[in-house]
């Protein structure tokens, strides 16, 4: 390196992550601007015309719309339509499988307000500029708001009701043994309450949709979604297509092999981040409603502020954790009470106890979930979705217990290691959590730290703290189908309507098909995200590879079997008359014993009229297993706290994860890393503030609703520990997209406790919360030798 280098010689070339792993196959498109998201559609993709739609939202949460004056808006040159409840098409009721708001509340059907920021009009114009101008001129008047509106749990506590089912059907009430009695009798007790703020997904791509009605009465929409088939059924129901396929029976249809054949087509090829937010959204219906009236294709993109009220979020949660332990720190009772916000419309209640019921051994366990319906838009699924908050509470309480009993926080977790699934007693399909604890601790230097609270100092006299928590996320699988066509050119096309949301599905699925077929990656092409393709299931719950991957593997195995049968029956093949079981396919070549071989392309070329097409349907048991199936990890945080300003900086995060078989270490690392960044944001930054007077999300912008920036994010070490989980899943894989977030907030909170002695029980951990109590006496002025 030259001596006048502007870069310090100490700076080393960062190691390339997972050097052997295939890189993202759509990478070049994403890096050159060619990747096309719904908002990027132009008129030449929709037959020469594409109008712009802009939503007008309510500025009041309750009451009724008295008048909507669109006269000024209609005079703006280029305006084609001002859609309101007065002229909107009447919609039929729909069923939202994810509990989304539109299952209970269809947009623009009447004058009633349910929340601040509700869609009250859609303006359609020739250009975006005209639509924006006109939208600003739509004048809406409202009746007086309801005097008893509730926008926060503090306001809506009297609305609390027990919840029977949370999440996708998990029990909201669990009792194993006699938790109350056992807690009362325990020699060590911890009883803490936790409050976590609402926060929004804020995917970089806002909600967007292009809707076009076809001449034959069919409807095509392009939008980012996590469930194209689900959205198609919703559209079909809403617009009265008389569907044979109805959710949730769509799953039964899939299992019965019935194709999705009505006139609604949903295409979703690129999604600019989803994290749970893009599925059954309100704008899914708004754009087709507008396009129906104008008779022209419409593109609707939400502005950033609108995404706060027209898309879901993680709702406010209040939790109480009671832990009872014996003298050695063994849990005798775990009691988890939760009060969660929900919308007045929408059925979603976060599965807050999904970790509590699975993570630690205890003879007595209680989960009691309540929800209060607030006059806000509906909370929904958000990365985790209940585990990060549940684990923040449980792991903070366990940390407190460790100090109370006098145990190392790592030791108390080992002492309560669940060798079987706590709530069912089932054997685990696999569980290498002990190795995670050991390797994570080793990497972060856990055993070299001074465990005494407030004892450690870093550079510039900052207080240093180490904290840890367990990461846990269920391993799920839903039905999915896949079709593979091996063509005369020896190339395979893989088809499944699953979705690329940044997790790397395109690469993983292509890779999986190629490996199973024995073809080089370049000879396999994936088609995805389109309801004209076989049902691919939902891109949710960290189960894309588990659901769709299983179908692809099975279809590929069938193709391979058919191919081998064909070549051994083909007299022109050098492999003629060999036993199929003696053949193997590698790198596009079929090889038999004694050196006989030919390429797949050569074998297929002899029968150009007969491509091999195979389909597979998997997930018939909906992931039910005789084993307990969870992915686990151990997450460690090192934080520094400025003793004067109390500014918290996460210096380092280490995550050691056991996630079954790892198909593509690069993509898995990236997902876990991103997920840990989410945990950091949840711990320190993210909160959407509710105006208790009006119901308005006050900080509805990326300038004020903070998410982690590059400078907020620490060095992140990911350790992957492979497990043989073949008895849990045919691919031996586990869900990893959400695992990474689940323990981070707790690990950071525990590290802050270690640094400062302050047990912060509400998220995010902002400066004001740390100002509450003085720093520990041991945090004397810097005297680091």
């Amino acid at each position, binding site marked *: 390196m030259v001596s006048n280098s502007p870069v310090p010689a100490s700076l080393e070339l960062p190691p390339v992550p997972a050097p052997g792993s295939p890189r993202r196959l759509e990478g070049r498109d994403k890096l050159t601007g060619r990747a096309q998201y719904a908002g990027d559609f132009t008129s030449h993709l929709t037959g020469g015309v594409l109008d712009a739609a802009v939503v007008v939202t309510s500025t009041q949460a309750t009451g009724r719309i008295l008048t909507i004056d669109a006269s000024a808006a209609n005079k703006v040159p280029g305006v084609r339509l001002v859609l309101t409840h007065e002229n909107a098409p009447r919609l039929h009721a729909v069923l939202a499988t994810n509990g989304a708001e539109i299952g209970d509340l269809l947009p623009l059907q009447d004058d009633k307000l349910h929340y601040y920021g509700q869609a009250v009009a859609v303006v359609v114009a020739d250009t975006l500029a005209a639509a924006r101008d006109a939208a600003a001129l739509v004048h809406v008047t409202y009746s007086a708001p309801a005097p008893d509106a509730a926008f926060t749990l503090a306001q809506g506590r009297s609305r609390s009701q027990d919840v029977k089912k949370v999440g996708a059907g998990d029990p909201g009430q669990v009792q194993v043994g006699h938790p109350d009695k056992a807690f009362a009798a325990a020699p060590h007790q911890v009883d803490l309450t936790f409050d976590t703020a609402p926060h929004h997904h804020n995917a970089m791509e806002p909600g967007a949709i292009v809707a076009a009605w076809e001449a034959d009465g069919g409807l095509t929409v392009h939008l980012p979604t996590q469930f194209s088939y689900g959205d198609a059924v919703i559209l079909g129901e809403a617009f009265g297509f008389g569907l044979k396929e109805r959710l949730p029976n769509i799953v039964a249809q899939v299992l019965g092999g019935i194709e999705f054949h009505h006139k609604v087509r949903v295409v979703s090829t690129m999604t600019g*981040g989803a994290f749970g937010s893009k599925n059954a959204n309100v704008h899914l219906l708004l754009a087709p409603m507008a396009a129906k009236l104008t008779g022209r294709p419409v593109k609707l993109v939400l502005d950033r502020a609108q995404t706060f009220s027209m898309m879901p979020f993680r709702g406010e949660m209040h939790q109480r954790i009671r832990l009872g332990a014996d003298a050695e720190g063994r849990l005798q009772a775990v009691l988890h009470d939760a009060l969660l916000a929900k919308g007045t419309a929408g059925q979603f209640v976060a599965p807050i106890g999904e970790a509590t019921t699975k993570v630690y051994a205890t003879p007595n366990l209680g989960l009691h979930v309540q929800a209060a319906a607030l006059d806000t838009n509906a909370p929904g699924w958000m990365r985790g979705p209940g585990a990060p908050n549940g684990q923040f509470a449980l792991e903070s309480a366990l940390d407190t217990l460790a100090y109370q009993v006098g145990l190392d926080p790592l030791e108390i977790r080992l002492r309560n290691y669940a060798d079987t699934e706590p709530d069912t007693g089932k054997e685990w399909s696999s569980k290498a959590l002990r190795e995670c604890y050991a390797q994570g601790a080793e990497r972060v230097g856990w055993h070299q730290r001074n465990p005494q609270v407030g004892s450690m100092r870093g550079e510039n006299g900052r207080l240093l703290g180490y904290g840890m928590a367990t990461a846990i996320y269920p391993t799920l699988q839903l039905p999915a189908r896949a079709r593979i066509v091996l063509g005369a050119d020896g190339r395979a096309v893989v088809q499944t309507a699953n979705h690329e949301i940044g997790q790397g599905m395109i690469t993983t699925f292509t890779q999986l098909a190629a490996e199973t077929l024995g073809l080089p990656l370049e000879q396999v092409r994936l088609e995805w995200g389109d309801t004209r393709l076989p049902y691919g299931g939902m891109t949710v719950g960290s189960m894309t590879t588990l659901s769709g991957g299983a179908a692809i593997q099975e279809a590929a195995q069938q193709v391979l079997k058919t191919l081998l049968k064909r070549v051994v029956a083909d007299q022109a093949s050098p492999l003629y008359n060999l036993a199929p079981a003696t053949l193997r396919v590698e790198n596009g070549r079929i090889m038999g014993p004694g050196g006989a071989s030919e390429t797949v392309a050569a074998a297929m070329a002899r029968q150009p009229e007969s491509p091999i097409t195979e389909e597979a349907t998997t997930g018939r048991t909906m992931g039910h297993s005789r084993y307990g199936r969870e992915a686990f990890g151990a997450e460690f945080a090192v934080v520094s706290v400025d003793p004067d300003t109390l500014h918290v900086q996460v210096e380092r995060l280490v995550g050691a994860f056991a996630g079954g078989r790892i198909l593509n270490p690069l993509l898995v690392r990236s997902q876990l890393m991103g997920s840990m960044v989410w945990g950091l944001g949840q711990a320190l930054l993210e909160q959407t503030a509710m105006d208790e007077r009006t119901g308005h999300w006050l900080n509805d912008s990326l300038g004020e609703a903070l998410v982690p920036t590059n400078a907020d994010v620490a060095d992140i070490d990911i350790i992957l520990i492979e497990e043989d989980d073949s008895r849990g899943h045919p691919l031996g894989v586990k869900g990893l997209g959400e695992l990474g977030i689940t323990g981070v907030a707790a690990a950071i909170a525990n590290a802050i406790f270690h640094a400062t002695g302050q047990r912060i029980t509400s998220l995010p951990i902002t400066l004001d919360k740390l100002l509450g109590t003085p720093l520990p006496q041991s945090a004397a002025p810097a005297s680091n030798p």
Partner: protein
Amino acid sequence: MLETLPYSNAPVPVDLTINGQLHQLAIEPRTTLLDVLREHLGLMGTKKGCDHGQCGACTVLLNGERRVSCLTLAVSHDEATVTTVEGLATGDELSPLQQAFLEYDAYQCGYCTPGQLCSAQGLLHEGHARTRDEVRELMSGNLCRCGAYPHITDAILSVLLTQQPTP
């Protein structure tokens, strides 16, 4: 007493050289460079994430310097040179930065990526970033909700280290 200034939305001529191609445009003075790119020219590589200059997704190079195009009025930059994500590669050959993003997996959903790339290109040009922490700090105007930051930083550092100016 406030004076009402005359204002006209009438289109005015603006010449912009975008990715090497001269565009002679007539646009309303209020039009942002971002909307010129996307709505007028159909150059959809540059993304709109917030339209408020808060997320960085719309970052382009304006006369070689990184700018959030959503807060840039096109009429203020008559005769300027603009490079967008579409203009970073040479034909099919990715730029060193694009190649580094590919190798280091410095992106996931890809929506912030055009802005990250242009911002990083501008950063390299500025020559201020000398350490990992400086790269982090100086790239903090570009949000990535997927959380690819450590890989973004690695990718930029790799280019910083291998693209040393020769003495």
